[in-house]
């Protein structure tokens, strides 16, 4: 009898001790971040930026954070499927780059927090209710496309003397570029440029449009990777295109104006860390991308027989020689 009570007492003590121990040391969690974008590989610059930003905030890959990366190569249906997959996998947070991926994530889950980057106009594209109070489960970095699209037109006009026609080619599902249309039209009219708007929904329409671009036309490349449209503009269009980030200029585009992709990733890390540690997305205002680059590729300019005017060279913070 005595022995059994002793055993019971010991067991009770052990249980209490266990509970105490569990409380005293918080369980070390590895946060799972689902990553969703339309790139062709895992090393999208916003993702590299996010990893760098989180590292600086003490959240190290492997030890504190694990990334489950889904890139869908600009294939329209694949993004929605990948979003569903991440939601089902029960990740702690979903990190997206560009608007199709963000909207796909928003459709797939209304509870898992989502932090976005490269969304050009989060309110117009209904990603959030307002920038100050996003509502819902999303917040992130706005790449300010609606504001910047007319500026891109202006930069292109500065580069190409006597520019008369500019093409604006984008995928039909691309609401960021659609949202920017009104301000682009207004700017085109102000600069006395003929704006040719081509919304394309299949590869056939895309190539027809691209083949019509003349050598002395300009092209406003869309900010979204759907259908690989920007890459195809770079490859096929005979006239100079303006692109949304310096990464393009580093790889052959003649000029770009827009926020740095990697920097948006770094900027978003603060939001991600706050949310992982308990904050709610609806309470974190959307931030505007804080670093805008004007980049120019002098080699490509030479090949296109374009003289880069001094006022562009002076403003450019990235110059590819």
């Amino acid at each position: 009898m005595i022995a059994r009570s002793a055993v019971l007492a010991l067991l009770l003590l052990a249980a209490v001790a266990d509970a105490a121990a569990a409380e005293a040391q918080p369980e070390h969690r590895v946060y799972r971040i689902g990553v969703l974008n339309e790139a062709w590989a895992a090393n999208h610059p916003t993702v590299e930026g996010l990893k760098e930003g989180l590292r600086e905030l003490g959240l190290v890959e492997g030890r504190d954070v694990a990334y489950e990366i889904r890139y869908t190569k600009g294939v329209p249906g694949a993004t929605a499927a990948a979003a569903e997959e991440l939601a089902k996998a029960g990740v702690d947070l979903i990190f997206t780059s560009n608007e199709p991926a963000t909207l796909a994530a928003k459709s797939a889950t209304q509870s898992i927090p989502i932090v976005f980057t490269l969304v050009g106009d989060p309110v117009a594209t209904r990603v959030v209710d307002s920038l100050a109070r996003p509502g819902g489960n999303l917040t992130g970095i706005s790449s300010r496309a609606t504001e910047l699209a007319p500026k891109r037109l202006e930069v292109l006009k500065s580069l190409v003397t006597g520019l008369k026609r500019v093409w604006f080619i984008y995928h039909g599902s691309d609401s960021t570029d659609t949202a920017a249309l009104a301000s682009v039209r207004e700017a085109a009219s102000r600069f006395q440029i003929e704006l040719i708007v081509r919304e394309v929904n299949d590869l056939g329409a895309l190539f027809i449009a691209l083949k019509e671009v003349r050598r002395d036309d300009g092209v406003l490349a869309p900010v979204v990777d759907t259908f690989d449209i920007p890459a195809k503009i770079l490859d096929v269009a005979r006239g100079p295109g303006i692109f949304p980030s310096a990464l393009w200029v580093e790889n052959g585009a003649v000029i770009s104006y827009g926020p740095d992709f990697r920097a948006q990733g770094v900027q978003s890390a603060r939001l991600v860390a706050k949310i992982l540690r308990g904050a709610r997305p609806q309470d974190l205002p959307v931030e505007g991308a804080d670093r805008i680059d004007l980049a120019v590729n002098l080699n490509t300019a030479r090949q296109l027989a374009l003289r880069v005017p001094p006022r562009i060279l002076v403003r450019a913070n990235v110059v590819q020689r």
Partner: protein
Amino acid sequence: MMQIHRIARLVVADALLLVALGGTAHAQAPIKIGASVSTTGSFAALGQNQFRGYQLCVKHANEKGGLLGRKIELVTEDDKSDPATAVQIYERLITEKRVDAILGPYGSSGADAVAAVSEKHRMPMIAPLASTSAIYKKGRKYVFMVLSPAEAYLEGLLDVAAKRGLKTVAVIHEDTLFPNTAAAGTVEIAKRKGLTVVLNEAYPKGAADFAALLTRVRAANPDVLAAGTYFEDAVAITRQLKTLDINPRMFGLTVGADLPKFYETLGKSAEYVYGATQWDPSLLTLRAGGLIPVARQYPGAREFVEDYQKTFPGADLSYHSAAGYSGCELLHESIRRAGSLDGERVRAALVKLEMNTVFGPFRVDAGGFQVGHKALMIQWQDGKKAIVSPEELAADKPRVPTPEWSKRP
């Protein structure tokens, strides 16, 4: 009157005949491009790849109408991987066979030796596979570089090592021009990145047994083993690292590791090995930052790869093939721009030339030293080459550290 007419007709007929004969003969004489090629000897594997590049480029050029309205004929001889033999061959090609232009031999030692001939005869020599900087810094006027410099071959390896917090490097290398230069450059870069060089040793050309040297490497216990090699020694060293069970956390090679043949020869022992490369077929589908296709920096590369496989079925395709092809492309373009075969004019065109070939960007300084082209680092992962440096092209992460031999599947 009749006589004058008759004479006039004869003169006209004669003139026409002359033009006809001269024109035909002129149009039919091919432009002869001479080169020595290393089809036998220690450079054979890579020399043959370069040779195929030359041959394919000439074939394509002829299909597109030749050069300056004439067909191109490639005139070559085997230099047996010996620089002295290469020198004799070029001398013969220029003075006896009277070639109109030349393309360089395989490798740095070959190009350095042959440069004396091209300088003497004032004939531009593009050396597509000579990466040793010193060759282009001796005040020579007629030698032109295509590759990124030897000194920087292993920069990617050390870059990854430093980023992963590794601390020590051992350097071993064949005792000839290119591996010596690559090793010296590696030591320089190691210092710049704050890594300590714990061993730096050369071995003679043709060495087959590295046991003693590798035992000294084991004793130095480096995090990183960097080796300045060609193909045969690269294979032998890798094998002996396994037999002796020596386990650096990273092991990288200058030449040889990037060849498909390296994996074919070594099988799983090639896993985790890093290799420098100047070009890779995967560049055709790679995207910078996972977004932007880099293929446009390598115009014609897709067609080059497809036709190479069709024309030489089963043959090894490496950056040496692409560099050879590119050297011929560059010669072709500079002759075309010069509008002449005159050595001075062609030289002037080459110095000014800025061009993307199947091999990538080409741009040289006044001494012919390459400033446009960038080198890459690969690592064998699951039987495939993954580009792990530079970072923006690295769709795959490097697998660090290399697991010990005994712990591998």
